[in-house]
């Protein structure tokens, strides 16, 4: 269980760049069989949201923000043996960031959640060129495509990407989400067909990953 005390030890070490202490905390939690989702939401996500807030308020430098993200990405690797062990359902999702979006950790956590639920989560990373994404999607024929933006400046880029995708895949289910929608931008996507705005990992899980009774 992630107590407030444990969280604050983790967070202060993350901000200080003490990767090894953070790594011990995460390893201990994994060994205690904590659900991976809890680790993602109550440790990684919570701490990165806090780091983002500190950056926005000029409490930490952009270099510190990048260091915290880099450390967190390496800590997420520790969870993979558990994540990839799920039995596969045969469903496929492609997860990506828009061109120009360099914050990839949110998309990566989404891809990992698909894997955790037995999907094949094909994760393409940050700043994916549109043509490459279309080529990859044609090749894999996924059940859905998830696109993440972390900064709101990338909403126009997302809009352009979605239109391009639609012109190639008229029926493909598209999920959009990420911190880029924190303040605005959601309305523009609500009216488009078969596009779903996802605001949290919980919502993603409830609406798309946990099989409903009539699906089974």
């Amino acid at each position, binding site marked *: 269980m992630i107590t407030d005390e444990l969280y604050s030890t983790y967070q202060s070490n993350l901000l200080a760049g003490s990767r090894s202490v953070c790594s011990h905390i995460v390893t201990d939690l994994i060994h205690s069989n904590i659900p991976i989702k809890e680790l993602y939401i109550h440790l990684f996500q919570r701490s990165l949201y806090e780091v983002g807030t500190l950056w926005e308020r000029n409490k930490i430098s952009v270099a510190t923000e990048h260091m915290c993200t880099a450390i967190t990405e390496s800590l997420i690797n520790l969870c993979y*043996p558990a994540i*990839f062990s799920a039995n596969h359902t045969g469903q496929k999702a492609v997860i990506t960031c828009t061109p120009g979006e360099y914050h990839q950790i949110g998309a990566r956590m989404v891809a990992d959640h698909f894997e955790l639920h037995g999907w094949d989560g094909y994760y393409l990373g940050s700043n994916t060129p549109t043509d490459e994404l279309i080529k990859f999607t044609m090749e894999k024929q996924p059940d859905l495509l998830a696109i993440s933006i972390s900064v709101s400046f990338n909403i126009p880029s997302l809009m352009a990407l979605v239109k391009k995708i639609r012109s190639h895949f008229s029926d493909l289910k598209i999920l959009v989400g990420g911190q880029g929608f924190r303040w605005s931008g959601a309305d523009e996507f609500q009216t488009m067909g078969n596009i779903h705005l996802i605001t949290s990992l919980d919502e993603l899980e409830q609406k798309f990953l946990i099989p409903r009774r009539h699906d089974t």
Partner: protein
Amino acid sequence: MTPEANPHLIDYLILESSMICLIIGKDGTILKANSCADSLSGHKLEGHPLNDFFVDFGRALDLTVFLNGSRDKILVNISTSSELPETYYFRFFDLGNSILALGEANRQEIGFLRKNMLELNQELNNLTRELLKKNVELKKLNDLKNQFLGIAAHDLRNPIGIIMTYSNFILEELNHEMTDAQITMLNTIQTTSEFMLRLLEELLDINALESGKLRLEAHKTDLLGLVRTNTSMMNVIAAKKNIHIQVESYETIPEVIIDRGKIEQVLNNLISNAVKFSLPGTTVTVKLFLTGDHVTVAVVDQGPGIPANETDRLFKPFQRTSVKATAGEKSTGLGLSIVRNIILGHHGKIWVESKVGVGSAFYFSLPLSS
């Protein structure tokens, strides 16, 4: 306006600026350094020669180069307290009796490097993710392979056993009614089926070991006694090749807690391998000695030896070396892998020392305490 015309500007540069600011005498001595320069270098620069701060890779810096009247920035590598040199862009100004040197980092270059580092880090993490995913998939496939192997080996064992028994029966009972050619064929059937049965049994062993099903029934055992019994049995086989097996032990070996059957399997394998690869007229020596809190067993032969580049893969399944058995004996390529797993299961160690043209020594050590 020159810096000299504005003493406040000099004071600011010397005390507070995040630029490197040095006032240098014409002889190359640093007359004054600001706090930025001092903290970067890790010590007070005042009074030191400029060459102590500027990394010139062995060449003496020529101040006249800096004072050629050009206003261009000069790229200089400086030594820092972090032991990693840093690159600064310097401008030099002639102040009459001294020189003012102002150095600043190239923000664009740092930004570019940082962006590249971030991208490389992301790429590394994404590749790690893919690698770990593939690892889990490979593990699942390996488990499936073991399961399949177990079923196949188990189901094939009985029919091969029947082939072996019946061929043996025909050879013994109907020998007088057969031609020499028929007897040769039946002998081939028998030796081949024996080899297949051994292969299947070793596959079942590997399967059990890889699936973590190694069950040890450990009891206090007289290891030296076990070695002597095993050696005397193996001497019968070795005698056919005119090879002698001897045991050497010059100290009291305490009882060890081991699975007798499994360690016997280890001894059988190592000694029969030694016999297999030895030439007639040579000796195989089995040595027992104490090493700290372990007892070590060494099986030493006078065979052809194993090339150094082949010893690493000896204990992996299905690996064979370029060394050939001296009487054409067959090998499944699984024995040493099984042996290694049995020894590791006893918390022991196994290794080999070999020299081409001299021979090989296979060692295993077992803890004296449980």
